[in-house]
């Protein structure tokens, strides 16, 4: 992106944080309270948000026509995207100049008995799928890209924001974010819980912060001492050691949270919504997106994921303007085109069209996220990613995974372009994004080795500006 754009971003951020900076000036806690971004005026660190739709998209394959991607590779303009009127991606035409669409990537590894689980295992990890557990319980054998990014660019010790639209119980409830091999991270499905967690103890009240931090330091020193005693036990299993290590690293003395808040009206909406009611899918997803944008703007986190729907998303969508707002069959069944979650069932009349409309709905949700990020003038400094843990709807395969991105990471990523990566494994895409947001290998060189070590190394040149 242009230098002008970057300057505008920085100024907007500083204005946003001005009240906070003034309030704490001159206090001894200054270094703790100073939000990293406020002091990072020169090189704005990147951010990344991944939103994940399930069940594949209605793209070409299995005898079905192309209804997702643009007609031609190359430059994207609002006019060219509007002309692709039968493609889901058209919904993002107004962001044409900020988009980067990448086709031609695939997951490298087979699932282990369950396509959805294997897709969810790999989509953000590029890691192998576990032998044990298997089936819908299978897990990824490596960390996810949001985790790696958080380690590299988040405020120290802060985990990636991990949000879920839908129920946390079920057949395949949580699939996306991994701390390491088989270490699936729980996801927050209640936007108000997430909000409260982000805004707990904030820097706006320095007296309280100072008092609380003093007490916490003493308490935590004791807790850390106890944990270290247990870590010294010689009979610890590898798994117990890992868990206690994580616990120890989770203990931090002062976690100053966001000084930013949502408008009262919006807070009440977050409080009121029932996050497990499928009818609230759109509303809850948008609330999560508000939180992600706020978290980035206020530097609570620089990395976030939103898993929209369960592994095999069975939401019964109601799409405004489609079929008079009638409730559609379960999305998973639509994606299979039959009234069944298994292998056989009655065909769903018009299922292709329904799937296409659901893709368009998710495109509009992604646009909502881009609008939010733009409202904080953030879009150019990071990257927002809309993806899927399957490629094609009906066949539920791992080929040609949809990657729809917006934002240049301060000029690193190509913009206004639809490119073909050339049927490569998608770890290369993550290498490119990791490098774009500012992660580096130990020797300072670009990250080229994310994911399973057996995979080809490198970046995708076609994605870079």
């Amino acid at each position, binding site marked *: 992106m242009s230098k002008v754009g970057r300057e505008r971003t920085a100024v907007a951020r500083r204005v946003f944080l001005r009240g906070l900076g003034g309030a704490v000036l001159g206090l001894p806690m200054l270094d703790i309270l100073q939000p990293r971004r406020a002091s990072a005026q020169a090189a704005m660190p990147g951010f990344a948000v991944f939103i994940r739709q399930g069940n594949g998209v209605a793209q070409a394959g*299995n005898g079905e026509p192309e209804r997702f991607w643009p007609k031609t590779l190359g430059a994207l303009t609002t006019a060219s995207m509007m002309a692709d009127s039968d493609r889901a991606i058209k919904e993002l035409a107004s962001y044409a100049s900020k988009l980067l669409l990448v086709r031609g990537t695939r997951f490298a590894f087979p699932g282990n*008995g369950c396509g959805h*689980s294997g897709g969810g295992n790999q989509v953000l990890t590029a890691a192998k799928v576990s032998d*044990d*557990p298997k*089936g*819908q319980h299978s897990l990824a054998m490596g960390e996810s890209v949001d985790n790696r990014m958080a380690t590299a660019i988040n405020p120290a010790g*802060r*985990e990636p924001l991990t949000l879920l639209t839908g129920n*946390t*119980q079920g057949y395949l*409830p*949580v699939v996306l974010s991994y*701390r390491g091999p088989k270490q*699936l991270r*729980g*996801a*927050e499905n*209640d936007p108000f*819980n997430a909000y409260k*967690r982000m805004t707990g103890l904030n820097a706006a009240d320095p007296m309280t912060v100072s*008092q*609380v931090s003093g*007490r*916490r330091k003493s*308490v*935590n020193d*004791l*807790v850390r001492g*106890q*944990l270290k005693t*247990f870590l010294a*036990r010689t*009979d*610890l*299993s*590898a*798994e*117990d050691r890992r*868990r206690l290590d*994580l616990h120890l*690293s*989770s203990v931090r003395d002062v*976690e100053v949270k966001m000084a930013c808040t949502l408008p009262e009206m919006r807070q009440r909406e977050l409080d009121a919504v029932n996050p*497990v*009611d*499928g009818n609230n899918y759109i509303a809850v997803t948008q609330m999560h997106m508000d939180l992600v944008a706020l978290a980035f703007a206020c530097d609570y986190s620089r990395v976030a994921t939103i898993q929209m729907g369960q592994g095999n998303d069975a939401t019964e969508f109601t799409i405004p303007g489609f079929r008079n707002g009638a409730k559609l069959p379960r999305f998973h069944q639509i994606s299979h085109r*039959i*009234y*069944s*979650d*298994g*292998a*056989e*069932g*009655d*065909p769903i009349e018009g299922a292709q069209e329904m799937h296409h409309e659901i893709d368009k709905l998710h495109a509009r949700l992604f646009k909502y996220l881009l609008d939010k990020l733009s409202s904080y003038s953030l879009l150019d400094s990071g990257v927002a990613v809309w993806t899927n843990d399957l490629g094609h709807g*009906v*066949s*539920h395969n791992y080929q040609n995974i949809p990657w729809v991105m917006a934002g240049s990471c301060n000029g690193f990523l190509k913009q206004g372009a639809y490119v073909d990566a050339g049927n490569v494994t998608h770890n290369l895409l993550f290498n490119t994004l990791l490098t774009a947001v500012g992660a580096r290998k130990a020797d300072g060189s670009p990250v080229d080795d994310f994911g399973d070590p057996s995979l080809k190394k490198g970046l995708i040149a076609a994605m870079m500006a």
Partner: protein
Amino acid sequence: MLILAAGLVACTGTIADPGSDAFAPGDLPSKPGAPGSKPGATPSGSCSGAACGVEATVASSAFPRLSHRQWAASVKDLLALDTLPDVSGFTNDAPSSTGFDNTGGVLDVSPGLWADYEEEAEALAQQIAADPARLNKILPAGLPSSGDARAKAFVSGFGERAFRRPLTTTEIDAFSALFKQGTSLVPGRDEFSAGVQVTVEAMLQAPQFIYRIEGAGKKAANGEVALTDYEIATRLSFALWDSIPDATLLAAAKAGQLHEASQIASQAQRLLKDARAAEKLDEFHRQLLELRSYDTLHPKGLPDSIGASMRKETERFVHDAVIDHDGGLKQLLTANYSFVNRDLASVYGLSGTFGSEFTRADLDATQRAGLLTQPGFLAYRSGDTAPILRGVFINLKFLCADLPPPPVFTPPKLVGDTRRARVDAVTGVGTCGETCHARMINPAGFPLENFDDAGRYRTQDNGHPVDASASYPFADGPQSYDGVIEWTRTLDQSREAHECYVRHWLEYSFGRGYAAGDAPLVRRVAAESRTAEISVKQLLVQLVQSPSFRTRISEAP
């Protein structure tokens, strides 16, 4: 054209432990997927331990973390609160393959959860310290009146309840030192209550509270470590209460009277009479049957509140059968009564006057039997594929059958006059769906074809008589039945159903995943459940007396 992928081989009903002659076909399939529980090492080529049918210990975490529910219940007891602290905002744990929330060996303390613990501990400690009446309730008996002795006695006495064992000298010193810092850390409070506040705050965040730490006992030559009496007290109270031991249980541990099976059994019987045990038994069935999902059920033509009513019905029934009447799996599967309000009475087709309150109602014994015929169970699995959804759930949760996930396919054209005919046409004998569906899934679901999407009884489907007959391949041989009454009786007579139920209970009471080494124990207790019809409470008393409950083996370093 149907295309079925590989994976059919797994659909053989039940799977014997390979390499073990002692396991008859039909023994529980092992569940290697359960994290946090690895089968004990079995030397290959020879039979030993569990492989010979001997009840043995299986490896488990030495630091299982409290579930959120356990944390809340423990804090309520420890701080003598009137109600459970609200932990609904605690960072969600990743789901475990047991399906239960308390598989402690896979539960982490992430930065998010640690912050939740911290904030809740601070808030609770502050409330207690600020209120002399509440503070009084948590003071150990015989506290010295002042000075260092008073601080130390508080640390020792309160700490023993929080950590479920006497504190070590080092621990007493460390927490007493913190206690003394109270006045400087909590300005504006008197010395003692300030000390209490920081001590309570710290102990609620201490690993000794958050984890059920084990491993203090002596290691035997075979690698087994006998649990200390205090460790057994903790295992027992969490197994039956999801909370910390009470004073009686700690006293038994202190007296060294909590390591023999008979000693454990008598304490278990005492604990099972407490309301905390009732809540644990209720919650087990809530999680096993996914009852919380019923809330949003809304079959056509019924009021908005019907989902909540359906959940409440099953909760009341389970509580009545298992707590109030000391029932076992037999009652849960075959009882012909339930609890209904006006809306449910209409689903059941009951005559009489019903209001918004729930009352006990006898049901038609030719139509209804236990959990499987309750409207919530049926409505939760409705639609044209209801026989498949119901059949899969019964296979997975009632029979612990090892069904592989559905294969990749191209959709077929599907026709038939009844739901059964449509399902049969594509999954029945002679189709590619035969291996899993025709053999195992459909026979478990078809007997429920007498129930529509709201759980109403029907004899006709689309103008044709309902066919609810089927045959299931049990390990002891195929069993045929016609209708749900015969099906639930058949289930109750099967080894599989009782072994499966006991296996779930082992996971939920021990707080770890099932491992192959647990099979002999499960088989023995299940046999008592099936033939002697022991109650769920008796079943639990059996489980906690087992060697696996009284000793431990560490997982690989």
